[in-house]
């Protein structure tokens, strides 16, 4: 399937040096089988995927499809067994848990990311305030992590990820633990921020509607081992709603495909 040309997202002009935000080429990953010596379990099998600058791609799959493993590989937290992965700079990563540091305030969490990136001390505070503004959390600077609600924590985590100033944002089911209303609001926020910043996003989820609502391109992975089963281009205009008829229609189609993939595993 041809790479979708980004129409809604702004493509950063200076990103032309590297024509992709992430390039995954023939990547396989196997882990040693637990308990037995010498055994290898293949988790990812020959994945080839490009994320264009400014593109929003969701990786969709059932349990055991290795989507989180793939994200770890792209993040550089682990190395592929076969194949190569290239990214435009070091990507930012957001987890299902907010992973904010409880010994720091919301603002300081963001400032730590800025500090580790090498931002000068005088610029950190205003930049942290700006990022909190971006996720609409003005006034949360001095709040401790435990004083924030689940949705607010994920927004601070998003602000901290943005503080890394990466071209690519990797998201590992970041909204899976939130209630439906909060999740819906954060979908809107993420879409707005993605369009404002021109970031590339690689978003992992097992929620079909979430995938369709957010992405320009949905990539379905099969399970055990994870292979790319199919891709869909989603050219619905933003803002989208999870209740939109067009979203529902495509979701039904993708869900059918996903169910088919899952069903294959019951047959042997």
């Amino acid at each position, binding site marked *: 399937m041809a790479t979708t040309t980004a129409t809604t997202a702004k493509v950063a002009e200076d990103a032309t040096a590297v024509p992709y935000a992430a390039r995954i080429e023939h990547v396989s990953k196997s882990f040693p089988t637990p308990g037995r010596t010498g055994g290898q379990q293949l988790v990812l099998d020959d994945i080839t995927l490009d994320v264009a600058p400014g593109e929003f791609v969701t990786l969709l799959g059932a349990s055991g499809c290795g989507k989180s493993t793939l994200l770890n590989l792209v*993040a550089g*937290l682990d190395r592929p067994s076969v194949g190569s992965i290239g990214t435009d700079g*070091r*990507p*930012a*990563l957001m*987890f299902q*848990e907010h*992973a904010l*540091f*409880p*010994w*720091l305030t919301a603002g300081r969490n963001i400032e*730590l*990311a800025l*500090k*580790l*990136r090498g931002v000068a001390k005088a610029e950190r505070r205003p930049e942290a305030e700006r990022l909190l503004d971006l996720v*609409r*959390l003005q006034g949360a600077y001095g709040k*401790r*992590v*435990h*004083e*924030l*609600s*689940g*949705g*607010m924590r994920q927004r601070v985590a998003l602000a*901290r990820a943005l503080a*890394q100033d990466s071209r690519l944002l990797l998201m590992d089911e970041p909204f899976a633990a939130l209630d439906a*209303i*909060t999740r819906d*609001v954060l979908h*809107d*926020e993420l879409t*707005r921020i993605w369009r404002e910043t021109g970031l590339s996003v690689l978003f992992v989820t097992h929620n079909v509607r979430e995938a369709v609502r957010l992405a320009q391109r949905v990539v379905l992975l099969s399970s055990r081992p994870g292979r790319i089963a199919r891709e869909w281009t989603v050219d619905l205009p933003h*803002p989208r*709603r999870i*209740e*939109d*008829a067009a979203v529902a229609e495509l979701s039904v189609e993708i869900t059918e495909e996903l169910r088919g993939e899952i069903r294959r595993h019951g047959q042997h």
Partner: protein
Amino acid sequence: MASTDNGVDVKKHSADDLAGLEAGLDALDSVVVSRTPLRETLNRKVLPPVTAIVLVLVVWQLLVWAQVAPEYKLPAPADVWAEVSDAWLKGTLLDYIWTSVSRGLLGFLIALAIGTPLGLLVARVRFVRGAIGPILSGLQSLPSVAWVPPAVLWLGLNDSMMYAVILLGAVPSIANGLVAGIDQIPPLFLRAGRTLGATGLREARYIVMPAALPGYLAGLKQGWAFSWRSLMAAEIIATSPDLGVGLGQLLEHGRTNSSMSQVFLAIFLILLVGIAIDLLIFSPLERRVLRSRGLLVTR
């Protein structure tokens, strides 16, 4: 679909209302953190121990009146108090305390300076952990009083012998506390730190040490208790005119003079210092750290 028109309408509104919706959610979901008022703190934290102390004094006085033991074995509270005011008037009371406390605190600080990098090494370097990890935790179960005889032989009857005993008691527990604290860090924090670019020394400084702080503080607290105990053991066993009179020596003098009220005085002072350091330094520190992380459940 009949709702298409409606859907468009909702869309337009949602763009404007998103900020308001979000603000509403934030307000509904936020946790309100309040501090307990002073009077309640007094009632809960001060009243019970004061009651217990008064009760002990009453029972003690009753036992003295009932003459369950001769006076040289069980002095009256008033006799012990006379000993306190006597030492206070002679100006020696604070000297006793300061001699021991200054030794204890200095020894503890040196133990801190050695135990912290040691703990960090044991926790983070697999080879070091394999090599000295078991010895370090084993040393904790060795009563530090066992180090007094060799320390006297190696170093003689002087202050460095005292410090050696304190270090041998406190360094393992400080290091072990830090190791335990580091082992309990959720792996997610380390992953998050690494994606933010914290590796090597920066990881230790910005992620590992702050994340391990609660366990580290528990180790420090125990380290202080060990320092103080080791010091008292050393002071009781090793008495020499060069060493000055600390609380341990005071206790030993009380025994040789068969002055039970002096023995009681020394024991009270040793206990008092232990409690005071914990109450004034470690407990507030620990509470502050736990509260700031939302880990302190007030009941």
